[in-house]
């Protein structure tokens, strides 16, 4: 803990201080509307602090690489949108606690992004989880809300135990809690018992499993639909963005950066989970009538795409530019978050305190009764479906393009091509239910005009999200470049220097000890640069997707 650390922590400190102030103030004051303003001010202050930081400073257990910066900005933006979305006071006690917990989750996400150490990362993850449990309970006051809080709590605790067990093996295999030392231990810089790599593998599986709960990947996703359905729009938006982002940060930090030499194992697992996840989410979503449940399945499916990007990042970590999986991952996550928050914010705005809009059917005829809200919702849905001029399209293009650019000379390429095909088919299925919402809004006869008393904050949030989606869609360059930058600074292992595939504990001949790590050797995994052929393949696939989805919708 040094002064440099403290300076790096200023944004988080601001947020936590604001949260504590709100917590304590809430006990004495009844000003229900002021808390959101304080939270917004804190977010603004944190943004200023983040802006004025010197990114080159080096903290001990705090990282400040570009990935951290990216996620911190992401967290602040998402936090602002969520605070705005949830700015309508609760109908009963608990408003200050609600707002404070919201700020704490944002601070937790920022800390997770910056953590360079297992201990801090664990505590930061819990700083997201525990306020989330409280938030889930606070949003509503009926049995459904209690049920969803209980489900999320119990399963979350289980996942957190699994994650911790993974951490324990990670620590055991390398003898350190700092990611830099873990990385050094595993890539052969530090002498380590070779069999211990198996512990690293155990650690990887358990950590991945624990994180799969956070990002809602099959088969750790089961809580998501029930919990989303049972809670408020604001909470659903929070759940679909903040824990997910945290999960993916940790995955990027640990799977990609901290455990080198595992890629031949890890990408297969991640790819399998990705394919299962997107398929499960999409086919289940076809059946849903409840809006939040539908979007829960949608968020599961989107997790599948993001995991696909992660697998690409693992299999072809040296891929250049935009086709790198990690870049695609962050770009996709940002576009997904904007569209999802926008959708939930629109729903929140359309309802009122006594009566939420829950069902997709509540949106019938919205195009006539509330054209502006319908337009915002349609933009979000189109973006989630990946319709071209919007942000979601670029996300999907990057993900599938990345998957197709994995070198096809090995088996990996074929697996990735197959996964991309499955992904495209999935996206076709997905378009069916996203466009169904649009169809309900524009082609059905309105039953009743939604009250639209959800508050100005929710509406502002919705409009901001729609603008973001359109803006990123029209001009995706800056966001892609930001993600690109974050990939360049992720610690990268030279492929020639890592010891290859230590199999499970009983190899007859230990590999010849390497006198010195050889840097600069040619990468063993070839990555074909994306060319016109890949782009064309991707576009053809998208075309198929559109056609198929049209069939699904209109038949």
């Amino acid at each position, binding site marked *: 803990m040094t002064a440099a650390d403290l300076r790096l922590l200023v944004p988080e400190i601001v947020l936590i201080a604001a949260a504590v102030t709100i917590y304590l103030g809430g006990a004495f004051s009844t000003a229900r509307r002021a808390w959101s303003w304080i939270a917004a001010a804190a977010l603004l202050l944190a943004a200023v602090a983040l802006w004025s930081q010197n990114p080159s400073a080096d903290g001990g257990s705090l990282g400040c690489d570009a990935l951290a910066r990216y996620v911190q900005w992401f967290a602040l933006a998402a936090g602002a949108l969520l605070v705005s979305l949830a700015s309508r006071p609760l109908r009963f006690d608990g408003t200050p606690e609600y707002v404070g917990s919201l700020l704490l989750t944002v601070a937790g996400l920022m800390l997770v992004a910056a953590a360079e150490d*297992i201990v801090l990362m664990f505590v930061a993850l*819990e700083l997201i989880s525990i306020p989330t449990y409280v938030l889930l309970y606070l949003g509503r006051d009926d*049995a459904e809300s*209690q049920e969803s809080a*209980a489900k999320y709590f119990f399963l979350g605790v*289980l996942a957190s135990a699994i994650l911790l067990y993974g951490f324990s093996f990670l620590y*055991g295999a390398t003898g*350190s*809690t700092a990611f830099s030392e873990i990385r050094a231990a595993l890539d052969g810089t530090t002498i380590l018992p070779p069999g211990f790599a198996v512990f690293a593998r155990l650690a990887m599986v358990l950590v991945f499993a624990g994180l799969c709960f956070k990002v809602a990947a099959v088969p750790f996703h089961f809580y998501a639909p029930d919990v989303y359905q049972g809670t408020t729009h604001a909470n659903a938006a929070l759940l679909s963005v903040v824990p997910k982002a945290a999960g993916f940060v940790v995955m990027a930090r640990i799977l990609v950066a901290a455990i080198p030499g595992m890629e031949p194992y890890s990408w297969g697992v991640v790819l399998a989970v990705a394919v299962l996840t997107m398929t499960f989410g999409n086919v289940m979503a076809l059946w849903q009538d409840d809006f939040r449940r539908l979007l829960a399945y949608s968020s599961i499916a989107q997790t599948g795409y993001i995991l696909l990007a992660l697998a690409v990042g693992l299999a072809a970590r040296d891929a250049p530019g935009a086709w790198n999986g990690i870049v695609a991952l962050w770009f996709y996550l940002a576009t997904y978050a904007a569209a999802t928050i926008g959708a939930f914010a629109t729903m929140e705005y359309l309802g009122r305190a006594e009566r939420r809009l829950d069902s997709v059917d509540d949106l019938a005829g919205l195009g006539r009764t509330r054209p502006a809200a319908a337009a915002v919702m349609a933009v979000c849905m189109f973006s989630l479906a990946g319709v071209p001029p919007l942000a979601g399209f670029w996300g999907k293009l990057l993900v599938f393009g990345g998957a197709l650019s994995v070198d096809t000379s090995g088996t990996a390429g074929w697996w990735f091509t197959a996964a991309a095909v499955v992904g495209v088919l999935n996206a076709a299925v997905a378009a069916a239910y996203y466009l169904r919402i649009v169809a309900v809004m524009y082609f059905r006869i309105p039953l009743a005009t939604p009250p639209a008393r959800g508050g100005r904050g929710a509406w502002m949030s919705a409009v901001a999200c729609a603008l973001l989606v359109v803006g990123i869609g029209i001009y995706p360059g800056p966001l892609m470049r930001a993600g690109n930058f974050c990939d360049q600074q992720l610690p990268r292992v030279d492929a020639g220097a890592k010891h290859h595939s230590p199999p499970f504990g009983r190899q007859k001949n230990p590999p010849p000890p390497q006198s010195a790590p050889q840097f600069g050797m040619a990468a063993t995994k070839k990555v074909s640069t994306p060319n016109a052929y890949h782009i064309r393949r991707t576009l053809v696939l998208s075309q198929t997707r559109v056609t198929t989805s049209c069939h699904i919708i209109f038949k």
Partner: protein
Amino acid sequence: MHPEIALLNDFLLVGAALFGVGLIGFVSRRNMIVMFLSVEIMLQGVSLSLAAWGRFHNDFGGQTLVLFIIAVAACEAAIALALILTLFHRRCSLDIAAWHFLREANQPPFRDVPLPEEPAERREPWPRLPPAGVRPETFGEKDKYRPRV
């Protein structure tokens, strides 16, 4: 066999056992409090592993993490207690299976397997108050030896 390696091995095995037993408890027991206790057992297993690893690596990192685990477990316990209390007040049951209202729309609700018949204790008839003006019924001998209420 180096004693330190032996120690590590044994501790890791005990840790795994605790983790696994806790897992079984979490999955199979339906009482929410027992479920939470099971998670704590799992965390005990993790703590043992971490402590052993810390000793093996001669490093305090493991022990530190255990401390944080305890702290976090305390937080979770606080939330869990509050949550379980409110849940109990709503359904008057600690059964987690009582909370499955949120599910796919067309799925049948969970049905408890009927408990096998326990040998029911013979219930003594309680005295009943007759309506006013009616002479109470008597049971003869039983009135005299009625057990105390």
